């Protein structure tokens, strides 16, 4: 997030696109409610009539994958009506002409169909956003889990820069991170193309810096992403994998492919707190420790680094950091740490954003990076006065429909997401009595008109199939979802929806298109 959670309630205009905030980020949604009760405008863009959509002044029920048409038409209107922030565009950005050209044909009238609201509404949204004292955009996987994911993100950035709605309090671009420490995992270099602190592996100085810091020559060649690793394993190029706390056998698209890939490995190590579907395929399973059993830090979606404190002894005797350092040592690279805090200090030395952070400074409220030195109070919002790359760059993006569109055989668009009561592949929440009592069974949402056509009634078991597989799951007939679309989550092993999803990936950031797959729904008789 470029802003902080605490700034949301002061925001005048909230543009929420592809985020089911009340279910996926409940505490952030409380701040949004606060803003709304203060009189802020709320626009929610989501194919489903989610709870936050019901709360909105305007709900835009666009077709899945139609993000760029909406964002581009908004830019079109803002430029056409001269509503853009001329000073900001002149002083802080480049490439304005490119954008102008790219959105020229995106008149609201041309796209009302897939956007799902009248042209005049699109105009009003654009005007409201541009003119607001402070406007912030919020998005999650609804934007990124598409083959056009990278372009979607660029289109969001275009809109924010065009109106100067970034780099100010309560005004910015805010991807809401889905898991507790996605932010931190990225910060700490669990990515194939960057060292810790987003220092690119392709930059010679960085390679030199880390070669020196770690005393082992570093490679300048970007590594493989998850999906690419799976492909490589499938081909037999990848021989050994070490998976920590992840369950690709439920979370990744096209499970059949994942399973074949993992089975094809010569050696698989899985470190997890449970014997997950993925761990079942491993050669060695190392028991993990839950968050209650270890010291450490998580970095939340607003870049706040906060303490995780050990409350009980690790059930298996070791915290994960101890296990990994022992493996490192056994591999001939001695790593002996007396505490998690020592590891943090080492990481902070090579990660500029974390340079000023230490456990002692995190005691009460944590610190938001960037925090470059020990006196720095942390950073509440990013890009104040300057973008990290200097000038903000507009990138014209064009609309490309999702990789797999519904056709006669597979007439429905399958959309996937999360539920309030569960988390990720459910390894934790499914083992929690309260949560599993309240929400014990998954279902697939289908519009009453579609259900009627297929003769499906609420609660009935249906078979849902795509080109990659099929699952059976109960139908939930609801007008929350538009016609021609179905929705479910990936939390339940009993309804492993990722057997159906498409692993087609965005060509740049490699995010799979989990939000759109073509499926058919059949009555099970």
């Amino acid at each position, binding site marked *: 997030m470029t802003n902080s959670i605490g700034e949301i309630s002061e925001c005048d205009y909230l543009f929420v696109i592809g985020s089911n905030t009340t279910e996926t980020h409940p505490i952030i949604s409380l701040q949004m409610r606060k803003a709304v009760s203060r009189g802020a405008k709320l626009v929610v863009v989501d194919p489903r009539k989610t709870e936050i959509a019901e709360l909105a002044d305007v709900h835009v029920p666009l077709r899945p994958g139609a993000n760029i048409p909406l964002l581009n038409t908004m830019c079109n209107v803002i430029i056409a009506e001269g509503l853009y922030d001329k000073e900001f565009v002149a002083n802080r950005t480049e490439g304005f002409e490119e954008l102008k050209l790219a959105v020229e044909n995106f008149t609201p009238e041309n796209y009302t169909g897939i956007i799902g609201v009248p042209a005049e509404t699109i105009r009003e949204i654009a005007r409201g956003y541009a003119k607001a004292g402070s406007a912030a955009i919020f998005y999650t996987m609804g934007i990124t889990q598409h083959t056009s994911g990278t372009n979607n993100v660029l289109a969001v950035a275009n809109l924010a820069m065009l109106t100067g709605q970034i780099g100010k309090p309560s005004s910015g671009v805010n991807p809401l991170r889905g898991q507790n*420490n996605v932010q931190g995992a990225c910060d700490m270099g669990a990515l194939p193309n960057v060292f810790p602190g987003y220092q690119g592996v392709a930059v010679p100085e960085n390679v030199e810096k880390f070669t020196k810091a770690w005393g082992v020559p570093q490679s300048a060649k970007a590594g493989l992403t998850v999906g690419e690793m799976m492909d490589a394993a499938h081909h037999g190029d990848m021989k050994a994998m070490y998976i920590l706390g992840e369950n690709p056998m439920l979370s990744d698209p096209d499970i059949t492919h994942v399973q074949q890939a993992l089975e094809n490995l010569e050696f698989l190590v899985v470190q997890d707190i449970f014997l997950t579907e993925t761990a079942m395929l491993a050669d060695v399973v190392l028991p993990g420790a839950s968050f209650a059993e270890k010291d450490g830090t998580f970095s939340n979606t*607003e870049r706040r680094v906060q303490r995780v404190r050990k409350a009980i002894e690790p059930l298996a005797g070791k915290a*994960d950091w101890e296990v990994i350092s022992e493996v490192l040592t056994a591999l001939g690279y001695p790593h002996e740490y007396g505490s998690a805090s020592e590891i943090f200090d080492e990481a902070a030395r090579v990660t500029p954003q974390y340079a000023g952070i230490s456990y002692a400074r995190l005691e009460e409220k944590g610190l938001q990076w960037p925090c470059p030195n020990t006196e720095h109070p942390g950073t509440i919002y990013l890009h104040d006065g300057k973008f990290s790359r200097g000038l903000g760059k507009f990138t014209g993006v064009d609309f490309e429909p999702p990789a797999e569109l519904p056709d006669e055989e597979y007439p429905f668009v399958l959309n996937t997401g999360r539920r309030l009561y569960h988390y990720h592949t459910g390894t934790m929440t499914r083992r929690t009595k309260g949560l599993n009592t309240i929400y014990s069974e998954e279902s697939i949402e289908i519009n009453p008109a579609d259900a009627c056509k297929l003769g499906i009634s609420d609660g009935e078991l249906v078979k849902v199939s795509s080109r990659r597989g099929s699952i059976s799951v109960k139908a939930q007939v609801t007008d929350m979802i538009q016609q021609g679309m179905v929705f479910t989550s990936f939390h339940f092993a009993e309804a492993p929806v990722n057997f159906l999803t498409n692993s087609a990936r965005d060509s740049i950031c490699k995010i799979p298109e989990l939000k759109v797959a073509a499926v058919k729904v059949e009555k099970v008789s």
Partner: protein
Amino acid sequence: MADNVTLTINGRKVTVQAGITVLEAAQQNGIDIPTFCHDPELSKPGACRICVVEIKGWRNLPPSCVTAVTEGMEVETESEAVVEARRTILDLLLANHPQDCMTCQKFGDCRLADYAYRYGLRKTTFIGEQTNVPVDESSAVITRDVNKCILCGKCVRVCAEIVGRNVVDFVSRGFTTIVSPALEMGLGEKEAGCVNCGSCVAVCPVGALTEKNMQGIARPWEVEKVKTTCPYCGCGCNFDLNVKDGKVVGVTSNPTSAVNGRHLCVKGRFGYDFIHSSDRLTLPLIKKGGKDGDFVEVSWDEAIRYVASRLKEIKEENGSEAMGILSSARCTNEENYLMNKLARVALGTNNIDHCARL
């Protein structure tokens, strides 16, 4: 300074910011005034009157939570008249309160019990009709015992003003009033619209709303509280893990939390059972007898030695590019940093990723 006023509390001169309440002025100066219905985050009804104080020259005893400080005010927070008034209020509350402290989940952290003890109110002097409504166990996570409710209204306000749900409200029932979901539905009934966030539990001053999973497991004075960060979504809420005898027995709000204050969602507040699930792995497993073989429990030493030797072998044979690491968005920064070193230092590859994209 024009922005400050000086007043006297219990004979002590104090200077505070103008515009604040007498209650806040007292709290800032380490003087504890009892409150039931007041909450700094919520609107102020000034309804319960347990916070009354005596102010020189005033005819009545005003509730300190809604009375602004003024220059030269002379306040007494524990005068005879004040104590008398508080005792009467408590007496009336006790008259319609079940004698359940023996097993009540809130006991030890209950304002009614604390104030009754503080003001030496051993028994009520009133005999009256007692509310007698069956305990609402319909929610999977919250136990709601209306009979213990003192009608402070904090749950109503937190649910409406913060959570935005309006699940519970005052409902008139002939002679009495109770706080309840619409149509006296159970909290757990779907139509009640409760999202089980437990914010109402966090603000309830008595045992009317309590965490179901802690019932019979641990009393407030037996637990050690460890502040930590939630393992679920990216909001980064903080809370206190409640630990008894080396086990996590509950989660309670920690008001000093930067992001969320006392508020949590159902996962953060009630999603901790998995920690002690019987499915937890406690020993390393090695699959013996090939891919279709069975897992055998081994010691940590053996497992780590085996992992290291196999990784080394495969790397030597096939080169670093044949090695891959999936780190975790669920593990700590420290662990991710080490996984990054495992890939880049020990295995010599940039093939490291995690599920940020999922």
